[in-house]
């Protein structure tokens, strides 16, 4: 058996029909041979409709005492509307290294004009305290992750209790850092979550590029930069999804030279400006973006993308308004027997599934 690195799966319903966790868990579990039990995780969108105006901070706490300390810290920066432990059950193979907690918060009025950046800064501050990790910080969404196979992580977090219109899942086979809860995917910042299969050979370049824009990488793993790059390009620099994808997986210069002049000028400008944001090495990624943020391209989308020479697999399928993106077709077929359409996206070209309607 060839053991590849990691498994990824994304499922989204364009009509915001809420799907139970059953499908995503079954699909990702089918690819357990792609991971080794050292990390599994999920992102779910549409989780907290009654708190949809609040940033939902999912925070992993090293111990219970930290909870009060973090709550105190949060009070200095934001208004806490509600907080509670994220319910878990004992799972034999998972050691409870962290206590997951959720806080629903909003930003004090004088900071609301720049609330999203304010929340990012806050998340990075908390990550730097040691012992506490903000694993997601968007609205009406959340990330659940731990060390274990994905199905074990699903049982740990009692995912059967949640419904979402958009799901991401990841099974990890760590190659560049040890297995730890923080290193499990998805990586998430604000409303963006990302699952990644691959190894980024340009990590050092990407990380140092991001640092000059104020991002701090604190998860000791290459995949983290993808979430920040997407945030920088799509939310802060307002690039359309197609062009943000062309930054991560740019066309070759030879291809650029054959483009029509206006397009060529744009792509050249992107490559020259965002050269250090190019993601090199093999990758297949699925990026989910909720709709909690204002004025941002790509609200309510799921994007699948591979590296520009497609060194990692990515397969997409559609059935009745639901789109699937996965490492393997078998994972899709496990939960959707007869899709209307199955296709392998071209190397470096994004597949975009849009979600209709308002939040």
């Amino acid at each position: 058996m060839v053991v590849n690195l990691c498994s990824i799966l994304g499922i989204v319903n364009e009509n915001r029909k809420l799907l139970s966790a059953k499908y995503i868990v079954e699909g990702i579990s089918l690819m357990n041979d792609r991971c080794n039990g050292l990390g599994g995780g999920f992102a779910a969108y549409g989780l907290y409709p009654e708190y949809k105006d609040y940033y939902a901070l999912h925070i992993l706490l090293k111990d219970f005492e930290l909870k009060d300390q973090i709550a105190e810290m949060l009070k200095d920066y934001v208004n806490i509307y509600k907080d509670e432990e994220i319910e878990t059950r004992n799972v034999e193979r998972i050691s409870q290294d962290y206590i997951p907690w959720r806080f629903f918060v909003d930003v004090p009025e004088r900071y609301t004009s720049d609330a999203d950046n304010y929340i990012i800064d806050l998340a990075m501050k908390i990550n730097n305290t040691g012992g506490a990790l903000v694993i997601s910080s968007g609205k009406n969404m959340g990330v659940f992750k731990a060390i274990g196979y994905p199905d074990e992580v699903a049982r740990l977090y009692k995912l059967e209790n949640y419904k979402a219109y958009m799901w991401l899942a990841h099974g990890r086979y760590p190659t560049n850092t040890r297995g730890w809860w923080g290193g499990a995917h998805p990586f998430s910042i604000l409303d963006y979550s990302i699952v990644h299969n691959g190894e980024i050979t340009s990590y050092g370049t990407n990380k140092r590029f991001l640092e000059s824009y104020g991002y701090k990488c604190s998860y000791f793993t290459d995949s983290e930069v993808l979430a920040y790059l997407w945030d920088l390009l799509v939310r802060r620099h307002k690039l359309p999804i197609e062009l943000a994808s062309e930054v991560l997986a740019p066309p070759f210069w030879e291809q650029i030279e054959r483009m029509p002049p206006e397009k060529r000028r744009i792509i050249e400008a992107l490559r020259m400006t965002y050269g250090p944001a190019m993601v090199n090495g093999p990758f297949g990624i699925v990026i989910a973006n909720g709709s909690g943020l204002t004025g941002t391209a790509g609200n309510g989308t799921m994007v699948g993308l591979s590296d520009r020479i497609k060194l990692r697999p990515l397969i997409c399928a559609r059935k009745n308004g639901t789109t699937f993106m996965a490492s393997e077709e078998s994972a899709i077929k496990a939960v959707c027997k007869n899709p209307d359409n199955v296709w392998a996206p071209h190397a470096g070209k994004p597949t975009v599934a849009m979600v209709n309607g308002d939040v």
Partner: protein
Amino acid sequence: MEMYSSVPEFRVDIDRQACRLCKRCIENCSFGALEWRDNKVKAFNDRCVACQRCVSMCPEDAIALRRTPSVMSAHPIWTENARRDVFTQSRTGAILLASTGNELHEQVIFDNLLLDACQVTNPAIDPLREPIELRTYIGRKPRFVELEELGDSLRLNTKLSPALKLEIPIMIAQMSYGAISVEAHEALARAAVMRGTTMGSGEGGLHKKLYPYADHIIVQVASGRFGVHPAYLEAGAAVEIKIGQGAKPGIGGHLPGTKITDEISETRMIPIGADAISPAPHHDIYSIEDLAQLVNALKEATRYKKPVLVKIAAVHNVAAICSGICRAGADAIVIDGFRAGTGATPKVIRDNVGIPVELALASVDQRLREEGIRNETSIIASGTIRNSGDVAKAIALGADAVKIGTAALIALGCTVCKRCYTGKCAWGIATQDPELRSRLDPVEGAQRVSNLLLAWSIELKEILGAAGINSIESLRGNRDRLRGYGLDHTTLEILGVQPAGS
């Protein structure tokens, strides 16, 4: 009192049986080390510089050069060189002149840096099967790209600064016409055109012959302002202000009047036979704000169509200086390390002033990033680039591109005999003597330099492919793909590189 200083460094051994007395060696020796005496070739060992010209020209392979066995008693501190220098100066009362680069410090940090490759978790990329890109743009980059939606199409609202487009991240350094021959200049310019890169005019202006290649030439403006006129600025691909060079930081230049031939006189715009003196500082740049004014003046003069580069020697405070240069509007900064070569420099300066380019480069790149202005200027590293491994390591430390000087001259035939300052270069490179110059064929020389650049490009692609990278921009500043081996903790910290094994 001629003692040690007259002990010749080299000995010319002539195989008398093989020698057929053709005298070709005598014709070829530009240093007068071989003469015709008593119907045979006689060697004057004290004049030999071991340039290898006679060896390579002898049709019978009858000549061998040897290092003279030491006749002095050994001393670890008072090396032969140290003693030789003292004797020479006690005879002449003058500055010791030297050519090429620093000879005192043998450690090259590049040699203690190791590159990374992919195994298992990540596929290496085979450059014979997959494209690997080396294209590099030198110049100021915007911090973000702004697009505007116009119906179905997008409009680019960000105006890009002029940039140099290089097909390979290796440029040919600034070497002046005067220091080297017009044939050497032409060979380098042709090679730059052939490989899609640039060469530097140096500070001596641009010979008429070179204008057809000027879109691949970076024209230099140095403290002497030799040969600077509107057409010169207009012709170049970019303009480079030379503040200093690694082989002689803080030191000016002096081309003796005897070398100012009519062609050099015309190109440099100075009288025939007059010494060409480059002052140590630019006398219109005594501060950073003066530099900003010159940068802007040159941009204005070239209608904002050409990037303006600033070259400095790597000195102790290089990071702060480069921050200032970047803010003065330079589109690229050339950092010339303390091992950089030259035609002539005081030996004491060459060997003792400045810092290694690896450290300078690393600290400048880091400093500009910390200040959030790294995108506003490109960094070009020079002084010690000997092979494609050095190129890759410099880029991984943070350079956008590198420049090569000595390596390009070696490709033209230079054997590093270190006598450039004598003007007697037997290979027709560092000389203005018409007979010696005729030994260098610019077309053949260009092919050799082009071959060198091609070979390094192929090797760079192999290095990138092994590291699982298919475009040079993903190696740039990627210090994660370097490890230090045999370097101390502080050096590693400055380089921003982990020790091997970690």
